[in-house]
């Protein structure tokens, strides 16, 4: 247990959008879903990944020299990474002079994570904050997550899990005693669309949500508003229906933003979503949707500010 390691890609202190108060968010790597709008693309794969920021590259080509696989070649300006050949060893990142390369994914022990989490204890206490485990999908590393949660609770630190709900119920159930509240994504109430845009149906997710609410856990459902993908005006009722049938009381509406666009480029992936217009549109729909839910008696916040 002591030697257990898990894989994370970031720990963010002074995080104020992922639950109550001032929190530290621990991002676990790896996710079984693949939502087209994912704003943490570096979280999706469980494997470490190399990111490349072209504008920082000094064209020294040391990375190409150390790459055993020959996955890096000189381009007209900077480099090109052949992602298929890359075995994610990270040697290139170590030698990068311009800090253009970085690696997402680091294996850490529970103690290492807790040491960082503990640093902001005074801020949690003064703000009603704590730690949030996010991802990726935190339940994708169930043993590690459980160990982290246990460690936090034994230190009387408030805990939250930010989950897609796409996990075996038993895995979620085991963590219940150690979680103060859940941030639970509802990416789409329609199974067909969910299947198309997230890479899996929503049956398990809805079932787990119901079980979670029934268990008496505090659940805040987060609904991303991605116009054209999971959300049209005519979907207001559909979402409400699910929320009401499950018995959810708190909803956080998350309008689409395009800040992730650069991250896709970093990973050499294509970003298929429209941006400017969608952002505007999403904000509009989200505001209307929030008002609609409020009228139906829900407690609603927009954009993670609660």
């Amino acid at each position, binding site marked *: 247990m002591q030697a257990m390691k898990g894989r994370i890609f970031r720990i963010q202190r002074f*995080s104020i*959008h992922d639950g109550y108060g*001032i929190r530290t968010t621990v991002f676990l790597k790896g996710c079984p879903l693949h939502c087209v709008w994912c704003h943490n693309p570096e979280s999706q794969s469980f494997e470490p990944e190399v990111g490349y920021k072209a504008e920082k590259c*000094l064209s020294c080509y040391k990375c190409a020299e150390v790459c055993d696989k020959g996955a890096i070649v000189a381009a007209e300006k900077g480099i090109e990474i052949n992602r298929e050949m890359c075995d994610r060893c990270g040697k290139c990142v170590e030698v990068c002079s311009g800090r253009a390369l970085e690696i997402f994914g680091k294996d850490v022990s529970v103690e290492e994570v807790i040491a960082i989490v503990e640093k*902001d204890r005074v801020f949690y206490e003064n*703000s009603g*904050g704590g730690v949030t485990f996010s991802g990726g999908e935190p339940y994708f590393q169930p043993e590690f997550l459980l160990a982290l949660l246990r460690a936090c609770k034994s230190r009387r630190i408030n805990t939250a899990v930010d989950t897609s709900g796409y996990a075996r119920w038993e895995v979620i159930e085991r963590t219940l005693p150690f979680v103060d509240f859940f941030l639970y994504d509802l990416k789409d109430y329609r199974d067909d669309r969910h299947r198309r845009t997230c890479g899996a149906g929503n049956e398990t997710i809805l079932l787990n949500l119901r079980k979670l609410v029934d268990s008496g856990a505090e659940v805040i459902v987060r609904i991303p508003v991605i116009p054209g993908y999971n959300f049209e005006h005519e979907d207001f009722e559909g979402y409400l229906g699910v929320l009401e049938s499950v018995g959810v009381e708190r909803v956080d509406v998350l309008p689409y933003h395009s800040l992730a666009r650069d991250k896709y480029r970093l990973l050499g992936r294509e970003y298929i979503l429209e941006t400017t217009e969608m952002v505007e549109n999403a904000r509009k729909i989200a505001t209307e949707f929030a008002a609609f839910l409020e009228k139906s008696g829900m407690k609603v*916040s927009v954009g993670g500010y609660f």
Partner: protein
Amino acid sequence: MDRIETLVRNLAKPPRLSIERAKLYTDSMRNSEGEPMILRQAKALKNILENIPIQILDDELIVGTMLPNPPGAILFPEGVGLRLINELDTLPKRETNRLLVDEEDAGVLREEIAPYWQKRTIEAFSFPLMPDIMSVLYTGSVFVLTELAGISHVAINYPYLMRRGFRWFLEESERRIKELEENGVYEGEEYVFYHAARIVSEAIINYGLRYAELAERIAEETENETRKDELLKIAEICRKVPAEKPESFWEAVQFLWLVQSALHQENYEQAISMGRIDQYLYPYYYRDLKEGRIDKHKAFEILANLWIKTNEIVPPFDSLLEQFFSGQTTNQALTIGGCDIYGRDATNELTYLMLEVTNRLRLRQPNVHVRVSKGTPEDFLVKLAEVIASGCNAIALFNDEVAVEALRAMGVRDEDAWNYTTVGCVEIAPFGNSFTSSDAALINVAKALEYAMNEGKDVQFGHEFGVKTEKPKTLEELIENFRKQLAHIIKLVVKGCNILGYANAEIKPTPLLSLCIEDCFEEGRDVTRGGARYNFTGIQAVGVADVGDSLAAIERALEAGYTMDEIIEACKTNFVDNEELHRILIESPKYGNDDDRADKYTRMVLEFYCDEVNRHRNFRGGYFAAGCYPMTTNVGFGFLTSALPSGRRSGEPLNPGVSPSTGMDREGTTGVIKSASKINYAKIPNGASLTLNLSEDVLGSKGVEIIKALIKSALDLGCMHAQFNILKADVLKKAQEEPEKYRWLLVRVAGWSAYFVELSKPVQDEIIRRVSCKL
């Protein structure tokens, strides 16, 4: 339009250069040659207060202009005022902080005023006493000595003055003169002191009477009955104060303002502060409220009027000073909230009201400093957080427990320590009985590191201002060198300050100010000669985190196999062709991220500094007191400092106060606060500035809650000071493009507020970078 809008509009003109004070002062000084200097100063002040043109502006309840036809700048030719003389043509045209100059005035300045002062300024007196130090000073790279301009930087003991009134000083001076004469004393320090005290007391009483007469005159011509009544009331008040003790809230504030504006004719316009204003005005407010003489609305108007008046004056900085003190602020601080002399919470209704006034006005001045402690009421903290979160950046917070500890360590008595006030931007001092020259000098600590690496030499300019030290091979040797270089620089600064202290006592005694600080009048000794109970000289460290980060980075680079020689060489060449080493350096642990590997070095550097500073004695019989804040010298010094092992490139700004180096705080605000809490504040009795930049975007609707939590945490962790900058980078960039549309945009720079568009371009850029990297 309500009264407050009118009052604000009164000041919405471009500021002018006012020579009236300089002329009256010079005339009098010319006629009093050969007399004791303190008497000459008293007579000169009397000449100004009795003859300077005065106005009552539209809708004013509190009268007394700091200069004729405000807003504008007053010239102090005896200090550094005449540096402007070569820039009279460019002042109205320069990019920031323009000043209108009347052509005729320019002629008078050039032909009448300047020639007289050429050999009579504080600088002219001091230069022959320390040509070596002056030549270092003039490079602007290692330190700045501000007492060339005068001293100022003091909180006025208004409660002491208001318990007496100036008639008391007048009569008591006469009594003491008589007493001395009866004992056969007709000369000497005490004797001339009381003569001077008598003259300035009479002068300030007459100053009040002039306003009473003016108010009556205007009242006669005023049709509007309400305003007529107001003017007659003003006349009645000015006949009474500051001669007599004030009895009502309105009288008390008017008393304060007449003294404040008179002091600005004697002492140059930096950091003449008002002390614990919510505490000493409260009895007047309480009594008036109870007896129905005033309501909250009226009190609000009177206070707003006072706040607005402080904006009448701007400093006449020349282009050189602009680099080091950009932002055109006069740093008239006032202190609200906090504990009483027994350490019990003393927040009162006025504390809340003054916070409201500050929030409504959002002006550059005054600097509003809020004392907070563990006993501060929860609802006051909420109010405070609301005001800050809404973007009111004119407020700074001070942690009582920590400030008191630092003052106690300098031998300040318990009750005086608990009764501390703020002065200027972040300085702290016992209220009412201290003269701390709190901004006497600023030192570029990073320069000591540059010298330490290069055998005492300045890499950029080839100066050999440091002491000769061996080329270091190890980190320990470098640290040892650094200590020697720093001690050497501090020695120069201490010597310089002491000579300037002497020069001020000789050239620029300040008899009116001496009535305003406790024990001077009792002792019959001018405040510049050590008449106050507590005498400190505050000198500030600039760039401590850059040095701390450099040491941490060197530790890393040495581990990685580089030699000290290679690191030094890389800094000399500004890391050109050495990107790999630069990467190691810049990625080393940095102060501001709650990382002990870096924080321990910044703490250590500041402790070296404080120990070295605090052990020295000053001219007025007190000690030097370490501070850590930069004004904007971090930009000016940075411009003249070579690349550092922290990875900071040549010419880039240094870190401000105990805030992290620009862009090096990567863990967010909690990390910054945690790092700053590791500083040993008990050794920084002159104050240390910590700026927390938060983006409005990021805070969203959680702003109040988050800021309140940050304040409480900073208190719990033992930070000394914190100021919030709530802003958006895109707003700042827009403001840079279209300055005329963003004249209102107030930002905290480092311990003080300035209008963003009036800051110099490098400072603006610095702030934008600071904000942007958080988003």
